[in-house]
């Protein structure tokens, strides 16, 4: 074929080991991230694809992300891609689908259990910045679960929020909602 030269070159590239991208965090961490995982970060995807940049061996610095968070993000996204592939492979087989689902739920429960409130908040901010939809959704659900059935004081402390209601406004609210201050999970 006339295109022989091009074809063999393409083939050679795809047979090579997965491309990686080097990411640097603001606190000095350096990570070699597999390209499929890195492309889950829409901020990176649009940086390369939308703007037609070529993948090369240069490093990208992520100004808003620390190494602890990035390692957690990479862990979650790598597993999420694996589950996606397993799910696709199990399509049509109800039992297999259920097994993948349960495995995923088990991983997610363990993943979020190990996160302190502080870490959970930092992760949300990082994932929001990196624009990773699936992980953001998961973290948002996890935060919502942590503030269910909690007192107003707990929520304020969790998010580090200042109460900007005046004492009179608060009194009025307190009278109207006696329950919100009692009968909730202990702080």
């Amino acid at each position, binding site marked *: 074929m006339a295109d022989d030269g091009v074809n063999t070159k393409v083939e050679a590239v795809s047979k090579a080991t997965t491309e990686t991208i080097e990411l640097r965090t603001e606190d000095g961490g350096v990570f070699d991230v597999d390209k499929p995982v890195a492309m889950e970060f829409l901020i990176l995807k649009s940086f390369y694809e939308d703007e037609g940049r070529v993948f090369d061996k*240069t490093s990208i610095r992520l100004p808003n992300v620390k190494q602890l968070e990035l390692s957690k993000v990479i862990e979650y996204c790598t597993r999420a891609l694996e589950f996606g592939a397993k799910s696709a492979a199990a399509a049509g087989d109800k039992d297999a689908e259920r097994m993948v689902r349960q495995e995923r739920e088990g991983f997610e429960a363990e993943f979020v259990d190990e996160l302190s409130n502080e870490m959970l908040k930092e992760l949300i901010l990082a994932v929001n910045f990196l624009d990773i939809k699936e992980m953001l959704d998961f973290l*948002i659900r996890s935060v919502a679960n942590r503030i269910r059935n909690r007192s107003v004081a707990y929520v304020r402390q969790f998010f580090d929020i200042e109460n900007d*209601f005046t004492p009179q406004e608060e009194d009025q609210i307190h009278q109207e909602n006696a329950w919100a201050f009692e009968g909730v999970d202990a702080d």
Partner: protein
Amino acid sequence: MEEEKKLELEEAPIFHGDVLEAVLSRVPLIDLVPACQVSKPWESAVVSSLRHLNPIKPWLIVHTQTTRHPYATTTHAYDPRSDLWVEIEQPPIKHVSVLRSSHSTLLYMQSPFKFAFSFDPLHLMWHLADAPIAWRTDPIVALVGQHIVVAGGGCDFGDDPIPMETYDLRTGTWETCESMPSILKDSAASTSLSIAVDEQRMYVTEKTSGMTHSFDPSTKTWHGPYNLRPGTNVFSPVIGFVHGRMVVVGLIGDAENVKGVKLWEVSKGTETVELREVGEMPKELVEKLKGKSPRLPYIAMTSMGNLAYLHNPSEPGELILCEVTDGSKCKWGSVRNVVVNEVNRMQTLALTCSNVGLGDLQAALSSGDRRFIHC
């Protein structure tokens, strides 16, 4: 030396705006009450999240009442917005007689001496009136605008037709009015009639024939009949209002062999009514509706806003939901009735459906004697 690429710096990360609203969209309505008190920005975020991300949906409220003294009551509510059951701990409903429900939000108890009723979304307020002039068993009871309507039902004393009565909420008095269509006279409302209500009228469908009459309490006149039976292979039609329109839900086949359940929209012309099939219940949900019994003689419906809740009164363990959205599209689902278990056979079940908002929850909590407990 490797060139370092740097991504554009976003604005300083704070927990607000889109992310906060997304978190709040996952928080159950009952927990949004304290969320509103965290700070003023949170109060706006709650309102915005409810408006744009995950709006309020009508609650199904399941009331039980034991059939023996002290006639203890329980109240559980299902919030479809968060797929969550809550138990409402509150002072017991003072016993007048058997607790019953009619159309969506009306709860009532009628004894020979007293008539008690409640129609606010969380049933915080009970109204106590004298009983209607005539005593009857299992009558049609409905709330239309400012009037309670009581009609039909059975009576042990002779064959004379019992007059219909209406109670005016504003004056607190009962009035009798024109007799009702004979087809409805001896029917037991709870099993053979289906009742729906809009702002002006009460609609009553006789389940065997599908013949429907409507009553306007402000003019005290009956209208109809309209035939709301979608076909001869359809039985036990029940009516309600969903997405602003009257709908009919009917069983296909017969009680021993139900082949399916469908939903039709009713459009009323000047002389006739037209029924348009809009949805069919998925087979696995029909099986859930049947429960353990192979027979399904009739179903009941309660509805509000865009949601209809269907159940089998003989096997109320599963509740089937149908959400009708724009373009008359049906979205079906089911939820296990948290109240039903083996222990609770000796109790009456009454179901209501209401638009519960943050204000209603705040009002419920302000009394101090109510708690909402996640189930």
